[in-house]
């Protein structure tokens, strides 16, 4: 993942300074605006790969910033941050033009994984029909998975799980992101339900091959990566 230009619009200066520091440590360029008007002004100047917008902002509400950008034809991906974590708030946020929604308080790894996924989603390479990681190949149209020339039969859900992981190759994908994008549910499961699905998938695609492609990132989630390159 290359360096991204990120604009953070957040009125809590202390939280914002931790966040920008974290983003810079992760190799990105982060700007910070403290209110809705300033944020909208900076966002309009453009050049950002991702916007992180707090929902409640002084001078101009976060959702209204997004709506203003969208109505001007700006399609920069937006991650909404909000202290309101309930189901309805999420729906309103996405309806206003947000691309993803993260309830406060959140883990920094979760935020980082999500903005990287958002920026990836925004790139034109999204339309490719075959994903490749090392010698693993997933054909999205034919619904087939091959590794080193050998066909691997997968259940439909396992296929979607792998598809999502391969789409975000090289990025960290969190458990909640998987539950949201593969199962379409937005909650934090208490037991390790996702981990078990991953380990099943892993046993199918990695077991018996020379090197693993599906890695666990401690404290964050999972990533598809070919270490040989």
């Amino acid at each position, binding site marked *: 993942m290359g360096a991204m230009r990120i604009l953070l619009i957040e009125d809590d200066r202390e939280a914002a300074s931790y966040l920008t520091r974290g983003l810079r440590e992760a190799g990105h360029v982060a700007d910070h605006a403290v209110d809705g008007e300033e944020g909208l002004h900076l966002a309009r100047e453009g050049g950002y790969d991702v916007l992180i917008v707090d929902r409640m902002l002084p001078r101009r509400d976060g959702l209204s910033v997004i709506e203003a950008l969208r109505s001007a034809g700006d399609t920069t991906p937006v991650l909404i941050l909000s202290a309101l*974590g*309930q*189901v*309805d708030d999420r*729906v309103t946020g996405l309806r206003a033009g947000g691309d993803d929604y993260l*309830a406060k*308080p959140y*883990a920094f790894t979760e935020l980082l994984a999500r903005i990287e996924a958002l920026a990836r989603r925004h790139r034109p390479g999204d339309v490719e029909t075959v994903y490749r990681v090392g010698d693993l190949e997933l054909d999205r149209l034919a619904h087939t998975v091959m590794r080193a020339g050998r066909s691997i039969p997968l259940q439909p*859900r396992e296929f979607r799980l792998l598809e999502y992981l391969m789409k975000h190759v090289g990025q960290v994908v969190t458990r909640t992101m998987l539950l949201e994008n593969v*199962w*379409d*549910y*937005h*909650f*934090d*499961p*208490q*037991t*390790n*339900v996702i*981990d*078990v*699905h991953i*380990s*099943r998938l892993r046993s199918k695609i990695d077991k018996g091959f020379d090197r693993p492609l599906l890695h666990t990132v401690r*404290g964050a989630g999972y990533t598809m990566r070919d270490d040989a390159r």
Partner: protein
Amino acid sequence: MPAEPAALSRAARLWTRFIRTTAVKLSLVYLVVFAGLAVFLIGYIAYNTNALLSSQLDETIDAEIRGLAEQYEAGGLRRLTRAVDGRANVPGASLYLLTDVSGNRIAGNVGDVPANVLRAASGTPVPVPYQRFAIGEDDRPSEVTRRALVRVYVLPGGFRLLVGRDLAEQERFRTVVLEAVRVSVVVVIVLALATWVFVNHRVLKRIDGIAEASRRIMGGNLSERIPVAGSGDEFDRLAESLNAMLARIDDLMRGLKEVSDDIAHDLKTPLNRLRTRLETALRSGATADDLRGEIGATIEDCDALIRTFDALLLIARAEANATATAFSPVDLADLVADMGELYEAVAEDEGVGLTVAVERPAPVSGNRELLGRVVANLLDNALKYGRPETGAAQICLTLARRGPEAELTVADNGAGIPESDRARVMRRFVRLDSSRSAPGSGLGLSLVQAVVAMHGGRIELADAGPGLAVRLYLPLATPGPMAQSFETR
């Protein structure tokens, strides 16, 4: 003197208040309606009776004239005179007067009639004043002027024959009617007063009682209830629904208080633990690696706290029904199958058999996210607490249609929950001693219950023999428009 106008205006206020009471209004309406009805009825009967009496009089007079005219034809004036005298002297006789051409009396019992009456000689009877020419008890002609209905008949030869009936009878009847009107108005007024007394004492006193009880309740005594008389009338029904409302408010208030108590107790405990951990780490001057470990553990504690907090908020919102607006068509069958698939892997991994049986379709109107969470919670619980002492653990997730409801069951074959504890485990933060060592916040079932209640359903804990069966009943959406707008996911 300022006291006098003050007293006056006070009296006026009291009077206005009195006039404005429902009892007075009702009594006034009653009075007007029933007085009107009585007057109308009596008037109607009187009018018709009077008309009947008049026509009877007419006929009598006609018959008399015909008879007398026949006498005249048969026997001339002499015979007529005799007949008239004969009839006139009977007690209670009609009125007769026979005159010659110039109006001089020949025979009859009428003393004096206005001159124009005889000249008119009309066919129809007319009421006239007259004086009776009769020998009274005191042997003197009576001088009393009375009214009568008379008819004048001109005989051949210019003689005029007047026949009439005294109107005293009809006038007496009119008096009777007027008396009846007076009496009935008095009776109606008395009844109106009785109505006022009844309405005031029986009905309005009860409304006042309700108002009084409401004031006391508003004054802060939420456990007080509105008195129910037990007669089952509309006031009892009103009082009962108000009491149900009060019970609901009371419940909500108690819930709110419970939440704050729970937060105070169950969130402060982990916060305190967290603080102590950080303090100890700070004091001990441990190595950087130790500190890193402590901080990691602290973050985990924070996450647990956040989850508890979120669950509490969600329960509060579900209980207040604040998310009902986000309802959409959901097929429970898809949802249950999704959750079964999601948990199947983890169950297998832990050596628990998970069987899923779904009856399709099961459309409900609801919040897919919350319902998904509910099923996930129940499966989490079954995995955590539903293990038998010996033998293989088995969880059954079933969805069936039961008439207008969908029945969702999560059953395990673990130790179950004793009947006496079943109501208690639904409450926030309640954890049975047997499960205290396992991780969890004690909010799972409260959340399930709140979400199910929000969807208009109910929850039942039963014995799965062995094990616990949690049954949720959710109202199925009516087919038709729902089926069309159904989204397939």
